[in-house]
């Protein structure tokens, strides 16, 4: 193994339109999609991409880079670069947890290359941009030569590096509905240094109903085999009166629910321990941002 050269041999294809790309995916075997390359090229150098005869560069497909706002929400093309997302003022005002998550990723010279769709398709359990999209109730648009289907972001992941994508399919866009009401969002991340991959990440998106929690969604990264959507614990909070003790109790509940592992970034014990405080703090922050006392 080296990190200087790509030892693997493959053919390079660059379709100029989406139909052509989908045709390639349906006709050829062992195609990997190149968008930003910030995961794929590293993996190729590390020789952890066994099945690849073709690299398909999707940077010639303009529609995959577009962003479109409507009253219902925003549709982000799968190959929109992270830097274009984090510097988008409208994105920041509507979905601050998403832009905070993107800003917390890697380095500027990586975010200029990396796409948001790549963060999903690489399917790392640590993927920072995923949690906010899940918590905002985002939907992924998946296309193939057979047609288009939509999958809730929370149902996209199966295992580390594995998603519901079939071999002839690709992620083309991410739709996020506009949050309604008195909303507050928080994304927090624990990492060794700022550009590091997270030891733990957490997202909270809530809508306040007076002194009570209306709707709430929480997710965590780096604590399970896939980005973890805390569906049941979140649902149990709806309608409850917000208080410091509720925030603390929720932290305990989430920590108790997790079954993280030891890995090269941190330990299971640390993850469970820090989760208590992270959840309580993020909940309080999201609540305060929603205008709650």
């Amino acid at each position, binding site marked *: 193994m*080296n*990190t*200087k*050269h*790509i*030892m*693997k*041999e*493959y*053919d*390079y294809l*660059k379709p100029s339109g989406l139909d052509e790309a989908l045709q390639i995916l349906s006709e050829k075997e062992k195609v990997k999609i*190149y968008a930003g*390359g*910030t995961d794929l*090229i*590293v993996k*190729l*150098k*590390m020789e952890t991409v066994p099945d690849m005869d073709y*690299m398909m*560069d999707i*940077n010639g497909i303009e529609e995959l880079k577009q962003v479109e706002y409507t009253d219902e929400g925003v549709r982000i093309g799968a190959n929109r670069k992270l*830097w274009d997302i984090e510097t988008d003022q409208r994105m920041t005002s509507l979905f601050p947890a998403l832009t905070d998550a993107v800003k917390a990723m*890697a*380095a*500027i*010279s*990586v975010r*200029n*290359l990396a796409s948001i769709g790549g963060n999903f398709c690489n399917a790392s359990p640590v993927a920072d941009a995923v949690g906010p999209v899940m918590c905002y109730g985002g939907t992924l648009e998946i296309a193939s030569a057979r047609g288009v289907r939509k999958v809730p972001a929370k149902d996209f992941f199966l295992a580390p590096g594995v998603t519901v994508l079939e071999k002839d399919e690709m992620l083309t866009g991410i739709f996020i509905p506009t949050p309604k009401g008195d909303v507050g969002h928080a994304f927090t991340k624990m990492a060794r*240094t*700022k*550009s590091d991959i997270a030891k733990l990440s957490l997202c909270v998106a809530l809508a306040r109903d007076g002194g009570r929690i209306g709707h709430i969604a929480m997710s965590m990264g780096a604590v399970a085999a896939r980005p973890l959507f805390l569906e049941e614990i979140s649902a149990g909070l709806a309608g409850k009166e917000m208080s410091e003790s509720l925030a603390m109790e929720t932290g305990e509940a989430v920590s108790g629910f997790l079954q993280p592992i030891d890995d090269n970034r941190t330990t299971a014990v640390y993850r469970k321990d820090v989760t208590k405080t992270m959840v309580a703090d993020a909940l309080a922050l999201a609540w305060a941002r929603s205008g709650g006392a």
Partner: protein
Amino acid sequence: MSKHTINLTVNGKRRTLDVQSNELLIDVLRDRLYLTGTKYGCGIAECGACTVLHGDRSVMSCLVPAVAADGWEITTSEGLAKDGELTPVQESFVNLGAIQCGFCTPGMVVTSTALLRENPDPDEAYVKDYLRGNFCRCTGYVAIVQAVLDAAGKMKGAAAT
């Protein structure tokens, strides 16, 4: 393995090159065009030594397949100074001694150039955050951050006059 003819504009000069599908931009710059200012550090976008400009944006050239850079306008550290005259960023790095062993310097200078094109009036926190992907293993960050702020001050002064 497929072969491709690509066109690059590197430091203002048009280059046509034949590349293999698995060749990387950093190797084309260093080994084919002899622009060795761009450094190979880690090879996996952790260190920033290979940073070049794609238009006005900084990118890590160790991660870019050369064939995918077809049509790009690239500036390496060699292309910043014009007619032997240093840019404000380069001048501030020299004057403030923001260099120890020098290995990270091209990447630092290129990334700082992108920073100031994007935000001509950064504060210290902005500079530190922007440069967080560029490692100096001599750990000379204090002078580097000062140099970027110094360059910003000079450029603002020049723009005002």
